[in-house]
């Protein structure tokens, strides 16, 4: 049959057949969509939500995109919670869990085009970038804040724009220093270092003893690199901007002190910290080749879950048993840390703002936060002060995670100590602070050069 056709239809005939077929197919499709009844929108469902007591309805379905957390079971629980809420309220909800990098692009596109999910999880100070396109969620935040002991400062910095809450704080990915207790003991350190200076001394002693070095990321590591560099900067009393949000203050004796410190610290770290991304320090620690690094609780969590072994002499030991954490050391200005932070924003183009707000209220209540935070082993930390003492929070059930409990108290967002978190987010996106530290730590610039370069970039970031 097909041979028959081939013989009968010339090349041109065949092209024509294809063309006609495609035209008619499109025509048919158009005609179909024209006459066939449009898929009926889901009937507006009326339901009551505990607490809110509002009639909720959803146009189409409520869509949300969330950041994938560290533990897969944490993501599953989160999805189940959302679906549960949808079922309870008889509302269709679609939840997607995506990687951090994708979220950022989706959010920017949605904000600019006015099309996309109803709810999206955004990082750091993104609410300041998208402010105009986000719905006011002050009622949700005021309600939750009143019920659970108020919000941490960093949560307010990230989500409050001109006195209005434009995003609902979701979680900190709290940081601490993961370290090898056995190696620290070998050089006689039984109490974790309290200050950056003491940390350097430990690093030096480890180096002299020929043990695995300490290693803090100076590469473009979105979480770990920023967390480390901003924390060192701020705890030395330095800042990139003044309280007015405009004056660049990076050229200061305090910054110089912080950079001197990095120079010193770099001499006891492996040179590859300049290439560290967010996963490098985890890998190096899990392989036993470094003895301390800053990270979320994921190194310990992974080594426990995977049963990672490390060779001590002839013996193989469980790495997680030799791993513990201590809080970020303090600098001359005390302990000031960088907040690794996520919040959930509702786009103002959404037709489901009320339903979205009800869902976000639900997800941030104690009954939902705890079962989600628990299996995440410290990777998620609620930004409501009253929830950290919940008995089932991982840092309350697992002594090794205790250092993560205080992180949120001292942490801030780029832009601190001003209110210009838009400018701070801009500088953060350009890696200005990390690169300043890296250029001094790696020896490719003098302290003066590094400060000059950073100052020019910061002036541009904080200008707008």
């Amino acid at each position, binding site marked *: 049959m097909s041979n028959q*056709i081939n013989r*009968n*239809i010339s090349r*041109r*005939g065949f*092209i*024509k*057949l294809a*063309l*006609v*077929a495609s035209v*008619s*197919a499109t*025509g*048919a499709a158009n*005609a179909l969509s024209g006459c066939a009844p449009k898929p009926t929108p889901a009937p507006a469902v009326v339901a009551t939500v505990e607490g809110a007591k509002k009639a909720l309805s959803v146009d189409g379905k409520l869509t949300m995109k969330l950041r994938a957390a560290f533990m897969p079971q944490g993501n599953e629980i989160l999805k189940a919670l959302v679906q549960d809420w949808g079922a309870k309220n008889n509302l269709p909800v679609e939840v997607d869990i995506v990687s951090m990098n994708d979220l*950022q*692009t989706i959010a*920017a596109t949605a*904000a*600019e085009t006015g099309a996309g999910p109803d709810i999206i999880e955004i990082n750091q100070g993104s609410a300041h*970038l*998208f*402010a*105009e*396109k986000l719905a006011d969620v002050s009622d949700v935040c005021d309600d939750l804040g009143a019920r659970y002991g108020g919000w941490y400062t960093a949560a307010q910095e990230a989500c409050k724009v001109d006195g209005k809450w434009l995003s609902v704080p979701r979680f900190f990915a709290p940081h601490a220093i993961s370290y090898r207790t056995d190696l620290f003991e070998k050089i006689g350190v039984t109490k974790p270092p309290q200050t950056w200076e003491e940390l350097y001394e430990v690093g030096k002693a480890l180096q002299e003893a020929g043990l695995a070095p300490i290693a803090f990321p*100076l*590469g*473009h590591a979105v979480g770990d690199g920023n967390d480390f560099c901003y924390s060192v900067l701020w705890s030395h009393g330095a800042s990139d901007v003044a309280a007015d949000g405009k004056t660049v203050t990076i050229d200061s004796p305090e910054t110089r002190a912080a950079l001197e410190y990095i120079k010193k610290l770099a001499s006891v770290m*492996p*040179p*590859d*910290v*300049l*290439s*560290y*991304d967010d996963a*490098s320090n985890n*890998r*190096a620690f899990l*392989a036993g*080749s470094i003895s301390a690094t800053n990270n979320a609780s994921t190194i310990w969590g992974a080594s426990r879950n995977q049963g990672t072994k490390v060779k001590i002499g002839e013996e193989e030991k469980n790495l997680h048993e030799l791993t513990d954490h201590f809080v970020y050391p303090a600098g001359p200005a005390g302990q000031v840390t960088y907040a690794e932070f996520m919040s959930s924003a509702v786009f103002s183009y959404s037709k489901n703002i009320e339903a979205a707000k009800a869902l976000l209220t639900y997800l941030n209540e104690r009954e939902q936060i705890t079962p989600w935070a628990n299996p995440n082993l410290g990777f998620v930390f609620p930004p409501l002060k009253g929830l950290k003492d919940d008995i089932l929070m991982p840092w309350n059930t697992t002594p090794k995670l205790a250092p993560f409990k205080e992180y949120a108290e001292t942490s801030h967002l780029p832009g601190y100590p001003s209110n210009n978190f838009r400018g701070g*987010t*801009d500088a953060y*996106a*350009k*890696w200005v602070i990390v*690169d300043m530290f*890296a*250029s001094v730590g*790696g020896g*490719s610039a003098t302290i003066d050069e590094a400060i000059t*370069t950073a100052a*020019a*970039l910061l002036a*541009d970031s904080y200008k*707008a």
Partner: protein
Amino acid sequence: MRTIPLQSWSNQLEKRMEVMSPRESFSPTIQQRLSAWFNQEKILGPALVAPAVLILLLLIAYPFCVAIWLSLTDKVIARSDTGNFIWFANFAKLFKDSIFQRTAINTFNFALVSVFFKLVLGLLMALVLDEVKLFKNFFRGILLLPWIVPTSLSALGWLWMFDSQFSVINHLLLDWGLIQEKIIWLGVPATAMLSVQIVNIWRGIPFFGISLLAGLQAIPQELYEAAEIDGANAWSKFWKVTFPLLMPVTAVVTLFSIVQTFADFQIVYVLTRGGPLNSTHLFATLTHQTAILAGRLGEGAAVSLFIFPVLVIAVILQLRYLQKQD
């Protein structure tokens, strides 16, 4: 318009084919008239090209014009007080921006070095493949792999190979005694650039190799025979016969490669994100950082348009050359 299911259309056409045989006469139906109308060259030609033109207009020309417009404004994502026309302020600002200056140098370095090596090694690959007679298809297939595997995936593989701790490359070099200590591939500006270039070259060689191989095989064998009769050795056969005749293909392939390499994004994004110290930022990755992460659409568009003049010049030069050949 009355629509008829696909099946019935083709049936009709088949019938028409039978009907149209010269022995029989027929009175034209709508379909037949329609097809006669389509039969005209001036209708069929444009009709066939139309979808492609439409796609180009929608997906290339329109975004391109928007990018030009954006680059002349101070547009910032999600801010209605922006989008004002500011002439060339974005471009003027970029010239003074230390990250941009670095990026411009990087991009030229990255593209020119990579394309040069892709060309040389690709030519070598083509010449070798041309000689391979045994398992010819197998070798051709396997050498195409770097080109076929999605870049983001192969770049992830390279990320491991360049890992400061576990680099298999370091492992081998140390084992062979070629280096005394580990090379920090992605942590030092010079080696980081070298690393992304290596990956780009590795990925691009097959494209050159296969295209040039096609060119090689199109060279008439008689020319070589004639050269041999004149006493040419392999070297002069290459320079006097192969090379000049391969030039048109080489020009086109190089043009494509320059365009693609200048606009590369994935390799750098996966391997270094532009680090360390912005030493591997390319126009494309800086555009992403500026426009998406920092939200400065206007400035980001300006960064991306810096590729444009370079590409226009490349295209003009190449097309001129090809015209001369004709």
